């Protein structure tokens, strides 16, 4: 028994990087997540798909502690982080690339990257890494982030997640509101990021999600209703299409 308790509070390299078990999350009295369970192993890219409003973003917010679950557990490498402050969860290696990007519009591109790098990190190395991955950002390091195009802001949001030296990136709707050509650029960037970081991806663009992910979970009404290997075939699956279009 004491061994189990110790396992729950300390990192375990053999445990899934992220393990969400029977999570129930509410907004006020609205019951949004009704027992969500999922896991993500190290090195995987996992897609969370579903219609608008079924709880995909809330799942990410529950993992981060931004909207803490009332029931259930969230474990990072076996360590129980349920209800911990968001900054603690983030410092355990969880990065967030939120819906609508949320770059700091009054800060410059370079400042957005610097603030995302750990306090003790080599700032110049972080900037170099971001600009190597996204050369367009390196061309305007002193521009206010608010002056960038939507696609460049998305690049900046991804760069911010990249330089945080995160073990797990929670990526929320990266293609939302972007032109098709820009979506292709973002997908390419995310594919490069996925080669070195574990990703939990929320995405409504099903072909994009299936191209990027190794596995998927389908969410409906706050519950996981299907899961499996992510292949292009999933986009043709009648049952899944029914859930997504309902």
């Amino acid at each position, binding site marked *: 028994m004491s061994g189990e308790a110790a396992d729950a509070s300390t990192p375990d390299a053999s445990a899934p990087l992220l393990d969400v078990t029977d999570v129930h999350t509410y907004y006020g009295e609205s019951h949004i997540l009704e027992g969500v369970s999922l896991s993500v192993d190290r090195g995987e890219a996992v897609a969370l798909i579903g219609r608008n409003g079924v709880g995909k973003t809330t799942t990410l917010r529950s993992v981060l502690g*931004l909207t803490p679950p009332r029931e259930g557990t969230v474990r990072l490498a076996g360590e129980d982080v349920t209800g911990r402050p968001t900054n603690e969860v983030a410092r355990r290696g969880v990065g967030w690339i939120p819906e609508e990007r949320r770059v700091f519009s*009054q*800060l410059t591109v370079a400042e957005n990257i610097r603030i995302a790098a*750990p306090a003790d990190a080599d700032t110049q190395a972080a900037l170099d890494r971001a600009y190597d991955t996204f050369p367009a950002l390196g061309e305007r390091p002193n521009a206010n982030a608010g002056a960038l195009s939507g696609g460049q802001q998305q690049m900046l949001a991804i760069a911010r997640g990249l330089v945080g030296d995160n073990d797990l990136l929670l990526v929320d709707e990266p293609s939302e509101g972007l032109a098709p050509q820009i979506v292709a650029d973002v997908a390419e960037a995310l594919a490069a990021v996925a080669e070195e970081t574990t990703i939990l991806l929320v995405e409504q663009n099903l072909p994009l999600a299936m191209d990027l992910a190794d596995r998927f979970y389908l969410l409906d009404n706050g519950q996981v209703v299907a899961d499996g290997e992510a292949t292009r075939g999933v986009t043709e699956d009648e049952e899944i299409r029914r859930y997504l279009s309902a």
Partner: protein
Amino acid sequence: MSLAVPLVAFLDALGQFLRPSTLAEVILNGLSKAALYAMIAGGLTLIFGLMGVLNFAHGSLTMFGAYLGGLVLVLAVGQATGPLARVAYFFVAVVVVFGALAGLGGALEVGLIRPLYDRPPIYQILLTFGVTLVLDEAARIVVSFYGLQPISDWQAALGTKPGPLSASYEFAGVSVSGLALFEILVGAATVAAVWGFLTRTRYGLVVRAGSEDSEMTEALGIDVRRVFTTVFALGAGIAGVAGLLLAWDPVWGASVPLASETLLPAFVVVIIGGLGTFRGTVYAALLVGLVDASMTWWFVNAVDFSGLPQMTIFLILVLVLVVKPQGLFGVAEVGGH
């Protein structure tokens, strides 16, 4: 004929006002007012920008700084203390006041304001308004007990000012008081220090990011609540140092009503500059200081109605709110937690 007389008087006054020596004096007086406004309002805007809290207790913190700093000076300065030593004691008082007020501000944030962050803003407004009533009454009781004029200026503190700061100086026909120059120097140094902190340090970067989106900042692994406490303490400390400076200024002086006398112009400056933007607050302080000094000259030298200079500040406020409701440098939304 009846219109010609005031017109001639006006043109005569305009001629005097536009003389280089008069303009230089007005600008120097305006800068000294701006320095004080920037110091008082700077902390207020930092706190609002990051936390979304309108701190009604800010004026009381300035008043506490005036009394505490005055006390340090009264205890340290004697009849025989020379001017340089008095200035040195002033900077000792700066350290004491900043430390004490920052500690008080930090304790207020952690103990009283923090539990209310998740509630609507009206809770924080009512709380800080309640705090200002308690602080003002506490100050009134203490200064009455020790017989230190709670309503009028504390003369003993005013008396610790070194002679050269009470004197006026002439440069190329321009007359300026030593105190005005000292206020400009201290105010400029404070603004430069805060600006350097915000733009040259990682902590300042965190404050600016947190002012824009505290949830996103938290998700980058930064303990935003700790930053809230630091900024509240910093704002309270600067308000206290501004109060210390006012304890030497005969226009203000250390008194209990100083709390409300400073809070109102501070709010005006913060609103004109744009709630939550330090840069806007500094520019607004310059605008308000210079307009205030100009109008003071006009209503002292051309029109005998000394109540009007204050009114012009509020007219600027109304004008800005009508033309640009978010203030000169304001963004659509700040604060939030």
